[in-house]
């Protein structure tokens, strides 16, 4: 008789019971996060610091290119072209020499980044319709910067050529039409910000959940939770939701910093971008849970989470290094990196202003990954006793 009463007392209504259980667990999780002030400050500041750092330091667009001009016989045409180079703020002419040999030492010393050598018969050739030759020499010790500088120089020359033609007299020549769409000023910070959001979300979501869950494992508190009426999914959800909130705050910080400091455009729907960020966070959180269930200590979990998420997210996502210039194998491999898909989405929304009609495939891929990872995470999250 007494036992029957007891049994009823222990089972209120099923729904309220589940919510109060989950609520108690989440409250505890939020307390952990709030109490660890140092970590919290680092996590909250990270997007700001990263946007600023990446924005200023890791840009691949090049300014103040030190240009040496080799102009053996200056004439009206070469002067006009030289003016073109000085017109923008990209190039700074550091030397004007009559021959290439005089420029060579500048390169060696690192005093020039780029040299443009003009045909001795530049104006006459142009007049007669013969090809007027221009040699562009680039310090390519940093190949990416070198390629960029070369592209800039080409762009200046092409423009000049196009203007000449527009004036009528020239026979039509092949003009490489390079248009920098969506990012006409070649602001690399615009390209980085979507990648940065991915990076910050990965860090907070995957790394922090992996650490926090494996800490419970290491300290033995997980065992107590598993003996309690808490179900594994409740433990996972309770762990993950507070970090999702933190990740959301991070996305907002990163977006604000990017638009206030670097005027990165946000051409598409903010709501869609935030929704996609949450989706991506959940994928990362699932990875964190999975890593924690498969490892036995905080330290290992942290290392595995770093290796499994941060490296691919920075290197194989197209965030910094264009995927198109990678070997085929890596290109194929990059498809399993969630950040790759998110970056395509974020760039699409922010820079191109497109919506789901163009991004449904990427979104679907992320959903698929989420489903798969969540299933694996819950499956592997069984009481495992050494």
């Amino acid at each position: 008789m007494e036992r029957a009463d007891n049994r009823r007392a222990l089972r209120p209504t099923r729904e309220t019971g589940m919510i109060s259980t989950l609520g108690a667990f989440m409250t505890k999780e939020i307390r952990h996060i709030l109490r660890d002030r140092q970590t919290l400050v680092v996590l909250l500041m990270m997007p700001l610091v990263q946007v600023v750092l990446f924005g200023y330091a890791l840009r691949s667009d090049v300014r103040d290119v030190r240009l040496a001009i080799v102009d053996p016989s200056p004439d009206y045409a070469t002067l006009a072209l030289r003016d073109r180079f000085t017109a923008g703020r990209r190039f700074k002419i550091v030397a004007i020499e009559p021959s290439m040999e005089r420029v060579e030492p500048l390169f060696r010393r690192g005093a020039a980044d780029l040299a443009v050598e003009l045909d001795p018969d530049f104006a006459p050739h142009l007049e007669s319709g013969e090809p007027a030759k221009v040699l562009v020499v680039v310090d390519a010790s940093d190949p990416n910067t070198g390629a960029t500088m070369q592209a800039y120089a080409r762009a200046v020359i092409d423009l000049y050529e196009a203007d000449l033609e527009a004036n009528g007299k020239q026979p039509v020549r092949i003009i490489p039409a390079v248009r920098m769409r969506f990012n006409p000023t070649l602001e690399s910070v615009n390209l980085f910000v979507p990648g940065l959001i991915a990076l910050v979300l990965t860090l907070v979501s995957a790394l922090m959940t992996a650490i926090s869950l494996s800490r419970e494992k290491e300290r033995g508190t997980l065992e107590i939770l598993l003996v309690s009426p808490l179900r594994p999914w409740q433990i996972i959800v309770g762990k993950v939701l507070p970090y999702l909130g933190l990740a959301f705050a991070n996305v907002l910080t990163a977006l604000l910093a990017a638009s206030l400091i670097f005027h990165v455009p946000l051409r598409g729907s903010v709501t869609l971008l935030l929704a996609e960020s949450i989706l991506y966070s959940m994928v990362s959180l699932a990875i964190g849970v999975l890593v924690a269930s498969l490892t036995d200590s905080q330290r290992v979990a942290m290392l595995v989470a770093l290796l499994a998420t941060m490296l691919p997210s920075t290197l194989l996502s197209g965030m910094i290094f264009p995927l198109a210039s990678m070997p085929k194998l890596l290109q194929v491999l990059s498809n399993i990196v969630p950040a790759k898909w998110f970056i395509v989405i974020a760039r699409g929304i922010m820079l191109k202003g497109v919506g789901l009609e163009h991004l449904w495939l990427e979104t679907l891929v992320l959903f698929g990954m989420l489903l798969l990872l969540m299933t694996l995470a819950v499956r592997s999250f069984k009481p495992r006793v050494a």
Partner: protein
Amino acid sequence: MTAPAPKPVEPAIVARDLTRRFGSFTAVDNISFDVGQGEVFGFLGANGAGKTTAMKMLIGLLAPTSGEARVAGLDLKTETEEIRKRIGYMSQRFSLYEDLTVLENIALYGGIYQLSKETITERSSRMLEVLGLEDDLVARLPLGWKQKLAFSVALLHEPAIVFLDEPTGGVDPITRRQFWEMIYAAALRGTTVFVTTHYMDEAEYCDRISIMVDGKIAAMGTPLELKQKWNVPTIDELFVRLARPA
């Protein structure tokens, strides 16, 4: 007024031929025993004898390879969820959250076991009073207090059975004594206590004990029965004799 016919009291724990293998290694080998309601049952054994494995099967952390068990009148295999609500567990390692306060820890477990707000408030203030504790970060408590607190938290939802895995490891003798007083108090309130230990003096405090050797139960009974049967002055001596057969 006719009194209802007295129902036979079902034991708190019934284990039948419980076995657990890890690969080719048999950690627990066909053990069977009953633990009566309100009994303090000492589960003894050397390190690696299989007592923790056996306990983990009873609390649902580890599935038995074969055999069956009933815990708190419920079937271990099919009614695990119900069992979880009716048992308490304190592991070898201290397992409260050190970065939370005493009351926050209590609130967490109260919430997990679905106690009402009022019940949680009432029981936690009683708990602080009995333990003579102020609400503070758990990390700041001395080890002995932590253990007593962990035990009290394991009893928070008034479980039918509480499982204690070497609860007094690394604790000073006075605290150990106080700890056993708490165990007795719980048993008097009707809670069945299942405790593993390798302190043999503690074995003498139990109503009944079993001694595990190499995954099997080598001896079981009240401390007095066992000492008489084997003709030894202390359980310690019996333990040494069983654990190291000549």
